[in-house]
Structure formats: structure tokens, C-alpha cells
């Protein structure tokens, strides 16, 4: 199999890689770019642990081919904080103890950020439905939902 050359932008930085036609974006991020923040919980689009943004759209990177990143803008958990400054969602997850093992956390943060960009003032039900694609086995979701609502309130300046 010959590799495909891909030029893309990851977290604002230009990036290039060579991947096989059957490699997923998640494989590329983790194995070729060394960005292991996105997790593989299922490889079938059912857990959300691999959530990233491609051209401002929330996707499961295990369902996107690496080759599809050509010319695209990819944003991952690694690019979420601004230098030393955590994103309000990251801060609120910590303050609300919204993680136990933490393996689902990157996916939840990326998905929640996508939600708040679309809808800065979601109801609890809206948050629950938006995050229904992200599995967490540890927390029972209570603290995650509270953290997202609180971050949204803070970001609105409430």
C-alpha cells in the first residue's frame, strides 16, 4: 500500500503526514502525530471519546479517514487551553469534580465546547441531548452536566 500525503492544520499549526488509505483521523492523531489526548473507546462512533472538530464541525475522529483531513482545520483537546490559561470548560470540569478516571474527559470537553459555540445558553435537557453521544461510565453525568451549565453561565458573563 502506498501512503497518502496530507497537508492540514492541527490546532492552528500547519501539519503534514503520510497515512494509509484505511487509517482513521484518530489513528493519525494518536500514532503519527503523537497527540494521544483523543481516546479510542470503541472505534465505531458510539462513545465520543475521540471527538475532535474538523472545519468547526464536531466529529468522531474514529469515523473520519486521515486522508479526509487534507486542507482541513482540525482542532483537538490539545489545542483547547490558551497557553497557561485553561478554557472555562476545563476549569469548571475541575471545580465540579466532573471527571473520575478522566478517559472520557477530552471527548466531553471538545463536544461541550462545540455546543456552547452554537448555543451559549443551553437548557439542562439540551446539554444532556447534545452530550448523549459521549459515554461516561464513571460519573453518572451529574457533575459533567453541572460543569457545562456553569461554564456556559460564566462564558455568558452571568
Amino acid at each position, binding site marked *: 500500500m502506498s501512503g497518502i500525503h496530507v497537508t492540514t492544520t492541527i490546532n492552528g499549526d500547519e501539519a503534514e503526514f503520510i497515512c494509509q488509505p484505511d487509517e482513521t483521523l484518530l489513528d493519525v492523531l494518536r500514532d503519527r502525530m503523537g497527540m494521544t489526548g483523543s481516546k479510542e*473507546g470503541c472505534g*465505531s462512533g458510539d462513545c465520543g471519546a475521540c471527538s475532535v472538530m474538523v472545519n468547526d464541525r464536531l466529529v468522531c475522529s474514529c469515523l473520519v479517514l486521515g486522508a479526509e483531513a487534507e486542507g482541513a482545520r482540525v482542532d483537538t483537546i490539545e489545542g483547547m487551553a490558551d497557553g497557561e490559561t*485553561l478554557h472555562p470548560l*476545563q476549569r469548571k470540569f*475541575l471545580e465540579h469534580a466532573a471527571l*473520575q*478516571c478522566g478517559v472520557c474527559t477530552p471527548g466531553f470537553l471538545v463536544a461541550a465546547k462545540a455546543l456552547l459555540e452554537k448555543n451559549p445558553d443551553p437548557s439542562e435537557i439540551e446539554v444532556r441531548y447534545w452530550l448523549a453521544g459521549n459515554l461516561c461510565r*464513571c460519573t453518572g453525568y451529574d*457533575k459533567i452536566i453541572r460543569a457545562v451549565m456553569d461554564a456556559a453561565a460564566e462564558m455568558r458573563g452571568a
Partner: protein
Amino acid sequence: MSRLTEKARDGALKQVGTRPLRPDGIDKVTGRARFGADAVAPGMLVGKILRSPHAHARIKAIDTTKAEALSGVKAVITADDFGDVDESLTDTLHNIMAHGKALYEGHAVAAVAAVNMSVARQALKLIEVDYDVLPHVTDVEEAAQPDAPLIREDLLTVGVNPPATKPSNISARHEFGHGDVGKGFAEADIIVERTFRTEATHQGYIEPHSWLGSMGPDGQAELWGCTQGHYMVRDTCAGLLGIDVSKLRVTASEIGGGFGGKTTVFVEPVVLALSRKANRPVKITMSREEVFKATGPTSSSANRVKIGITKDGRITAADAELFYQGGAFPGSPVEFGAMAAFACYALENVRAVGWDVLANRPKQAAYRAPGAPMIVFAVESVIDELARRIDMDPVDFRLKNAPKEGDRSSYGPKFGPIGLIQTLEAAKAHPHYSAPLGPNQGRGIAAGFWFNFGGMTCSNINIGNDGTVTIAVGTPDIGGSRASMCLMAAEEFGIPYDRVKAIVADTSALGFNDVTDGSRVTFSSGYATIQSARAAIGEMCKRAAQIWGIPEEAVDWSDGHARPSGPNAGDFEPLSMAEIAASAARTGGPIAGHHEVNVDGAGVSFGVHIADVEIDPQTGRSTVTRYTVLQDAGKAIHPAYVEGQYQGGAVQGIGWALNEEYIYGEDGRLQNAGFLDYRMPVASDLPMIDTQIIEIPNEGHPYGVRGVGETPIVPPLGAIGNAVSQAIGLRVTETPMSPPRLLAMMSSYREAAE
């Protein structure tokens, strides 16, 4: 003398009980934390396992020559690559690699190591296995029949009298109880007896098992990956590979959930065997399908419960018979199930008999309070029914029969200080309990119990030159335990929380530590940490005495400082930890504290759950509309993480009660080995999970801690079952109470009524 400190009793703890940020938090919210699959090593190969497509088959021959010849394949192994092992490890060995027979669909039969994943996948296709397919059995009641297909031709039931002479799939019988149940039932005014069935569920941790291993020709080996017990991994793997324990160093990565499912080995020995053969590092990461098919789900079960009461609600006798299917090897948690069955009741006449049954399914592994939720579902359902029969409030009914300190437990020993009565009273007083219900809604309550565990534990504390503290523990941080360790050490030293750091040490850095199970971490590693801190404090007092030139006994410790004790000790300014540490070189060298112990005195714990459920009469779908967990924590070190355990355990139980199940086809193959079809609760399925922490100190711990992690999964099946039963007016006796099951129940009832 009670080891309980006065501080815990009179509420003088300053830091324990607060909610600081967890020390590993930033790594986890930025994606920097390294979990099992995140490791790489130079020259690393990809390992992949070939698994049986049959539920039960004799392996006549395996031909690996074509796979070995494929370019990029560096090693292929089968059962032949493992030698003789100690008898205690035979089942483990046969589970990680089939020897002679494949015992369940997904059973490993061979493995390869290759330069990349696509070569590894191709190599698996080239391995030829000649199977002789045998009849199989996956259902527990069928497997227990005398004419069922035999999984082991030589298995004789232990614990029966007269001794078994004919092989069967029943590996053991366990009995617990006291008094005379026959006499007790004769005294009863009302007796209810029913049989309940529960399907197997999976622990469902989001992180699949993943290990990187390296083993050289000199037998020196390293493993890196996700586990609940890296010392167990070391000892088991050393035994399976025939190497010295001291040659294998195991480092626990961050762990993405376990709930008991990462308390045994699955791919670790395979990784090492491949690495030994290829002489290169090898990594194996399971796919989700492999996790479902080849790692521990729970037991499925069939349980008969019979309880007799007087008209005024006193239980006169309780009897249960439990059948637990534990997969293709002995060792289902039926013994724990039989012990925990009636633990929430003070009984004169009680008996529980458990049968451990083999079937052609993956070997079960511990899952949070292993064995308890299934039988407690049955017991709490019958209790609910009895309370309703005599028109008594179900909390009052439980209060009337609840054990207290000094009462004999249904499983034998006498209870120490326990908090069931306080927890039940708190449930009754909770606003949830008296809130109005809407149409098609029901409210259920259930109580639950778990033993908790202590075990082999050790901890090191090193004081840095600047007076800051590093704690090393041997228990992986599965849910925020580093924060609890830091809090307890900061409390002992009397210094700010952020001057303390906790790490999980590898197997070569500390003595043996038991697996992170039995809700033991905050209790046991906390206990060892406190004692290590006290040892370090003792050493610092000695150093201060030396600096001041006074006897050691004349030095006291408080608020992070050594102080002369009393007027006769001399007039010295207190010395801070930083000052004492700075002069360590002159006073005897580095300052440390250390503690090794086999901790006992883990306090048992009780929880009570209240569930509201609404049933859609058209679809049979249940929606949990409100849920409250009340549980005795002994002492909550970090209350936010205790609440998290309550909430997470409750939701796993809700999933078990309503939707999660292992579905087997006629062919003995698992039909739903993925998150799409194995339906775990998602955020939109649930309400907020209300919690209330009750604190009745455990005398076995300096701060009164009890384990909290497991009890929360015990009551939900019963609480949801009771709520659903009330909502539909029929007693539910099976989990999951999925829409098709409820719909079928409701319509057959309607038909019968017409």
C-alpha cells in the same frame, strides 16, 4: 483501644472533608494524561489476538506457518509457547490462551506481533485452526442441568454432601446462615417466594485494555498499561512466563475505568510472550468487541428467595438459593452473593445457598460489589412485596428489621458500628421520599450492603529539601485517589494541600500492594499514608530535638511545625518542615516515612436508594425521573469524589436494571458486542442523581473512613424494580426491564385479564 482519633469524632479535621482540585486534574482536562494505549517504545510491534468464532470447540490443530511467513510478522504464539505453571494459575493461563478447547466465543487461540496493524490483521487470517465444534450452553439454568453439555469433563462439585461422583457444570456449593429456617417459616403469617433472573452486564469502562511490554533474552521484562493492580499483574505474569518476580517491572498507567474488570490479566502475558519471541517491544490494545467478548462481564443469575413475616412486619425466616453463571471457569461471585443477600436484615433464621455454574461464556470478572446486586434485587423485591401486603411503609418495614451494632450478620460475624438505621431514617426524611408522583409513575426504594476490604498495602513518604511531601502508593488512581491521599497527608502534617504530591509507584519501588478493589484504596492506602506521615513526623521531631539539644519526647508536632512540648522543654522557636528539611544533611540524612501493613478493619457499608420511574404504556420504555442515593461513607475524605462514586455506581445499576445485557444467539455467539447494541446509559437517559453522605465513623481507620465505591451499585436493581412494579402494577422479576420485556409482561397480563 479504638484507633479512631478524637479529631474525627469531634469534627476537628481541618482539610479532610474539603473539596480541593485533584492534583492530576490539569493533565486530564488537557489531554496530557497517559492512559494504557498512549504508550510507545522504540521499535514497538503491534500485537493482535486470534479468537475462537465458536462457543465450544475442540482445537484439533493450529497451523501458523503461513502467518509466520508473511513479511512484517515477527512472532506468532499459541498455547504451546507457554510452559507448565503452578496449579493456582492454570485457569488464568487457559483463559488467556485456549489449551485444547475453545470454551467461549472470543476465547484467544493464537497471537501475532507484526510491524503494523494491517500486517497483524492479515497474519491472523493466515492462521489455520482446525476446530471440532461441540454442543454448547450459555444459559445458567440450562448449564446447571445434569444432561447439559459438559464444559469440563472432570469437574466435580465441591461443597456437597455426599461428595459428587459425576462431573457437571456446577463447580461449587456455598451455604451461609444460622438458626432454623423451617421453624421460622412455621412462625410466619405471610410468606412470599419468587424466582428472579438477571442477565450478565459488562463493567463497560471506556478505556479498553492496553499493554506495552518488553522482554529481553535475559528475561528482564517491563510492562506498562492499565490495571487495577500492577503487583498482581507482575506476580501473575511472572508465574505464567516462568520468570522471577524481581525481573518484571510493571508500571500502572492512568486507568480509564475498571470497576473490577481490570483486576485480572487478559493480554499482559500474551504481550510478554510475543515480546520474548520477537525480541522487540509489543503493544496490544483490545478492540471494544474484544473487550465485550473476552474480558469479564458479570454473572448472569437465577435466584429463588423466600421470606416469611408476622402480621406486624417482623421477619421470621429468610431463605435463598442462588445460581450464578461465571463463564467457562469456576469462580463466579456466588459466595459473596450468598453472604450479602440478607445483610440488610437482623435475622434469627436465615439461610442462603449459592451454586457456582460454568457456561460457554467469557470468564466473569469482578464488577463493583461482585455478586451482590443480583441477589439483592431479588431480596429487596420480595421485601417490597411483603411490606405492601401488610400495608406498611417500606422504609418502616426495613427499619423494623434493620441490624445495629452488635447484631449478628446473616453471613456470620457481629456488626461493629454501622449506619443502616441512620441511612434509612435519612431516606425517610428526604424530600424525595414524600414528593407527589404523576400518572404511570412509581417509586421504589431498596437497601444494599457491601463488605469492603483492606489488604496488603504500603506507602512511602519522602520529605523534600524544601519541606514539601511526596507520597508513593501502590494503588492505581482510578477515581481521584491521589487527591484523597494528599488531603490525608496534609491533615497529618498540618500543611497546605498543595505542598503534598501523590504518585502511583511501580512494582519495583514499593512492597506488594493488593489489587485496587474491594473499595479499599482510600481506606487502605489512606491508612498506610497516614501511618507513613506519622513516621515522618516522628523523624522530624527527632531532628528538631537534635537541633535544639533536648530529648525527643520533649518535642511536639502541630500545624506543620515541631514545637518544644511544655514549659520544661526549653524556650525554642518552632521549626517548620522546610527548616527541618533544610538541615537534614546535618541531622542524619534524608527524611522519610514508611508503612507496610495488611490492613483489616475495613468498615462495611450500607446504602439506601430512592428511584422514581415513569413507564410509557405504549412502548414499555422506562424513564428514571428522579433518583436519590443515601449512603454511609464513615468519613468522606473528599466529598465531591464520594458523591461521584455514589452517582456513578447508581447509574451503572440503573443501566443494569433497565437496558444492559449480554444477548446470546442460538449459535452461542454474543449478538451485541458494541456500544451501539449494548446499551449503557447516556446523559439524556438520566436525571441529576441526588446524593446524601451519612457519616458513621469506622473504628478501623484513623479518620473513620469506610470504602464507598461498591455499595452504590447494590440497591439500584431493587429500587428500579420496585418502582417499575409499582408503576405497572405487576411484580418485575427479570433484568433488564427493557421495553420489549415490560411490554410483553403488560400485554400478557392484559390478555389474561380479558
